[in-house]
């Protein structure tokens, strides 16, 4: 693999020119501080320059600072295609459609919660289904199809949400254009038992607080209603087996359909078809079902966790100030308008980052911009940021989503045992429960990039601005 020669645009923007690879229609741009760029695996550059070859691509193929290689697109990849002559590619969204995160605040402080962390985490671990072999909310096929169309609105109708929750979800928790008639029976059967479940891998539910000195922007923090020492909880999960099956179904369909459109590609994971083709539209409508399911999934889990806090602190939801700050998706393809053109924006391990005044963000945030979440490891903490006009102008309204892996799962397990890691974190004041010590070891902090550098990269690049840093005190993972 030939390492590209980067052209430095500025301290956080590095361009791979079109001349680097035959077939590139646009340059590729990596958004990252130099240290992160230097540490990126070469698969990222190979994949993002493949993306730059896709028909109908506009401006640049981007990779965010948390980028690492994925399937088709790198994780951290962003690319926008003209809806008229451009394409759609499941590899530009990922298997876990609408994997995303949400942050819910409380009016509790670290002092209130610390003595109760063990009880809260143990109850969450008992009440939120995690890993394999767990069942969520009982729904039949008819209800599943309603979830697929209504998203978080289904949760509102069925007692898992409040009106103000929906206001604070990307796309208001329900994306239009979902059509369950394009779902396979397998997707339906995988989805029915899993609504309201966390899953495994790097999915988690974390109790966090804002440390002293952890506020970067006091004005934005005030708008978001947060202050030092405040306790919040974060949920990271997606569309579960439902979305995974939709992705698998269409990866296979596209593999076949490309023969019809005379499309040849080196990387089968980058399978694509014209966005406006029959197959492209079918995938888009099925993908939207998964986006809605994931919004509903995170909402149901929120409901369960609110209940835990209410029982532990013997107060109501409003009394405990448990309000959703925002829910963001980081694996989607959405139709958005830029410079008067409608584009299908693929974000694969990347977050939407809309700035002040954008009509698609809640009224209460229009002054400062859309909340953005960048999740770190269970040791290092996460960030709440705000979206910017610059992101809309430069990166199709996109920014990073997490800290990205630097070490394989097996290598991480060889370096530390899950039990030792759990004990070490307990000594640091972080109480963790997991179904699997092996799975826990795989998620050790040293296996991930430095989240502070990722957040600093996007802040310096101007595509989202740091508001607060969040540190963990309790965590459950599958």
């Amino acid at each position, binding site marked *: 693999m030939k390492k590209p020669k980067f052209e430095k645009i500025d301290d956080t923007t590095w361009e791979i020119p079109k001349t680097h690879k035959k077939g590139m229609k646009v340059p590729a741009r990596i958004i990252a501080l130099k240290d992160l760029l230097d540490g990126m*695996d070469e698969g990222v550059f190979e994949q993002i320059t493949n993306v730059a070859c896709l028909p109908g691509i506009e401006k640049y193929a981007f990779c965010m600072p948390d980028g*690492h*290689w*994925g*399937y088709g697109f790198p*994780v951290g990849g962003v690319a926008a295609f003209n809806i008229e002559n451009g394409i759609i590619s499941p590899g530009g969204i990922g*298997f*876990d459609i609408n994997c995303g995160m949400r942050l819910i605040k409380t009016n509790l402080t670290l002092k209130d919660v610390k003595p109760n962390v063990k009880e809260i985490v143990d109850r969450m671990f008992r009440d939120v289904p995690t*890993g*394999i*072999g*767990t*069942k969520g909310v009982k729904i039949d096929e008819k209800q599943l199809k309603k979830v697929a169309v209504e998203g978080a609105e289904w949760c509102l109708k069925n007692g898992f949400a409040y009106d103000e929750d929906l206001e604070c979800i990307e796309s208001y928790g329900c994306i239009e254009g979902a059509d369950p008639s394009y779902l396979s029976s*397998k997707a339906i*059967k*995988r989805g*029915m*038992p*899993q609504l309201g479940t966390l*899953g*495994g*891998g*790097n999915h988690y539910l974390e109790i966090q607080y804002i440390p002293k000195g952890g506020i970067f922007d006091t004005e934005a923090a005030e708008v978001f209603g947060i202050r030092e020492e405040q306790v919040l909880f974060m949920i990271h999960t997606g569309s*579960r*087996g439902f979305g*995974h*099956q939709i*992705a*698998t179904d269409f*990866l*296979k369909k596209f*593999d076949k359909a490309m023969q019809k459109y005379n499309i040849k590609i080196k990387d*089968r*994971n980058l*399978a694509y078809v014209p966005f406006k083709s029959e197959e492209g539209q079918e995938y888009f409508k099925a993908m939207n079902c998964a986006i809605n399911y994931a919004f509903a999934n995170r909402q149901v889990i929120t409901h369960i966790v609110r209940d835990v806090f209410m029982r532990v602190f013997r107060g109501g939801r409003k009394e405990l100030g448990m309000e959703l700050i925002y829910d963001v998706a980081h694996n989607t393809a959405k139709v958005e308008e830029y410079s008067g053109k409608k584009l299908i924006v693929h974000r694969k391990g990347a977050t939407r980052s809309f700035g002040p005044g954008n009509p698609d963000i809640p009224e209460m945030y229009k002054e400062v911009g859309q909340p953005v979440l960048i999740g770190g490891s269970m040791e290092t903490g996460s960030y709440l940021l705000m979206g910017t006009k610059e992101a809309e102008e430069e990166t199709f309204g996109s920014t990073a989503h997490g800290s990205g*892996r*630097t*070490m*394989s*799962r*097996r*290598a991480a397990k060889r370096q530390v045992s899950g039990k030792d890691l759990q004990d070490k974190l307990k000594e640091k004041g972080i109480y963790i429960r997991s*179904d*699997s010590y*092996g*799975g826990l070891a*795989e998620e050790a902090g040293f296996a991930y990039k430095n989240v502070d550098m990722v957040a600093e990269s996007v802040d310096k690049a101007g595509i989202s601005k740091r508001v607060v840093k969040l540190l963990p005190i309790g965590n459950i993972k*599958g």
Partner: protein
Amino acid sequence: MTKNDKIKFLDNIAIADTAFQIKGNSIKEVFENAAKALTMSMASPDCIEDKVKVNITLQNKKLDILLFDFLNEIIFYKDSDNLLFGKYNVGIEKSNGMFELKAKLEGEKADSKKHKITTDVKAVTLHMFKLGKKNGVFEARVVVDI
């Protein structure tokens, strides 16, 4: 071919996920070892009792896609029925240009402690996916998304 040669987990080609290489003296053996490796990615196959039997029938013109479909069936049953399998008996025949797989899988409902579950597999990817024959030995390479 030793037992370790037949199923080998590959560290360097799937940083965020799991990859494995399978060898076998026959196609049947490769398919069965691939099913075992997939289960090993999630749990301990030796701890899974054979309380439930599932029959799978699949067809495809391409043998590698047949393997892809077979492994995805195992993932499907994990989520739809909460089943993990510890025994795999696969038969593959070819007729009229089509490969047909008939498999009997035996297992039980997933139990995180009993089966020593480590992680959950989302899907089989096509990344570096291959099935072929080299020096008389059948080989497959599979990367799964965690």
